[in-house]
């Protein structure tokens, strides 16, 4: 460890605080499974207008790992994994 990194080392207090803040974002936004199902169906419907998708194996989830930062705060990200069976156009 270089001398520089000793000075740069975050205190474990700060590490704990930062980890908690990010962790609680995803804990708090976790929608109910019913709501996630509704969102999933709506997305599937819209996408289906333009291309043929595999609705049975599509997945959506809310996550904090997107590194989406706004005003210095980490915001949660909605991920959708939608397998395309056929591009209509």
């Amino acid at each position, binding site marked *: 460890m270089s001398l520089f990194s000793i000075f740069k080392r975050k*205190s*474990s*207090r*700060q590490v*704990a*605080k930062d*980890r*908690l*803040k990010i*962790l*609680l974002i995803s*804990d*708090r936004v976790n929608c109910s499974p019913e709501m996630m199902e509704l969102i999933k169906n709506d997305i599937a419907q819209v996408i289906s207008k333009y291309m043929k998708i595999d609705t049975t194996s599509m997945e959506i989830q809310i996550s904090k790992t997107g590194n989406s930062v706004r005003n210095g705060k980490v915001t949660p990200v909605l991920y959708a994994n939608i397998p395309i069976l056929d591009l209509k156009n």
Partner: protein
Amino acid sequence: MSEVIVVTSGKGGVGKTTTSANVGTGLAEMGKSVVLIDADIGLRNLDVVMGLENRIVYNLVDVIEGTCRLKQALIKDKRHAGLFLMPAAQTRDKNCVTPEQMVKLIDNLKTQFDYIILDCPAGIEQGFQNAVAGADHAIVVTTPEVSAIRDADRIIGLLEANEIKKIDLVVNRLRQDLVRRGEMMTVEDVLDILGIPLLGVVPDDENVVIATNQGEPLVGKNSLAGQAFYNICRRLEGKDVPFMDFNKNITIWTKVSGLFRKNLQEERV
């Protein structure tokens, strides 16, 4: 008008039972009539912390099932005339009681006591639902650790969903030496994250272990934790008791003057 307080935390082992015992005892010391209810059916411990384990005949489940009268399950405290314990059943489980039955039980107790304090089990299942059902005030106990704070956040969400209007925080087992070294979150950090009003800060104190060994709550006694619990009781009674400033810069002068002001500081935890 009696106040029904549930002491909860989500995570186990952060000090719910210790807090319940000390807050109940402290309020009784102030002349209030208090009943402590151990809502942790199957894993009761409030009786041993209070030192009343040898006096149990009937318990909460007996009252709810009608095996005994309400009065028969209330154990009188050794020292305080106005303090009673309703122990949990040890050989039953949480599912043998419903939230509706708990509300009914609490309604009966409301006519006799100023404070009804429920020691909630860890977790968010049936036992939690039973304990919060009749409460109008919640004390969330946490330690300044990531796991305890995460669970506390979840519990706060569930308390809000259960329409508990008043939710206060007790930060337990604060290690001031670690905070000074930057190796433990400060009370301000915890408040910043959880966003609920602070009711009290209890420093990590070996006297808590000693008191539990002896089955005698240490509230009001000459120890940091004892003073901290007493201050929590005073705040519950509506008194404005200032918090100790844990963020103070430690210089040689504050250390020296601190030696002389030790008693004064203990007043303010």
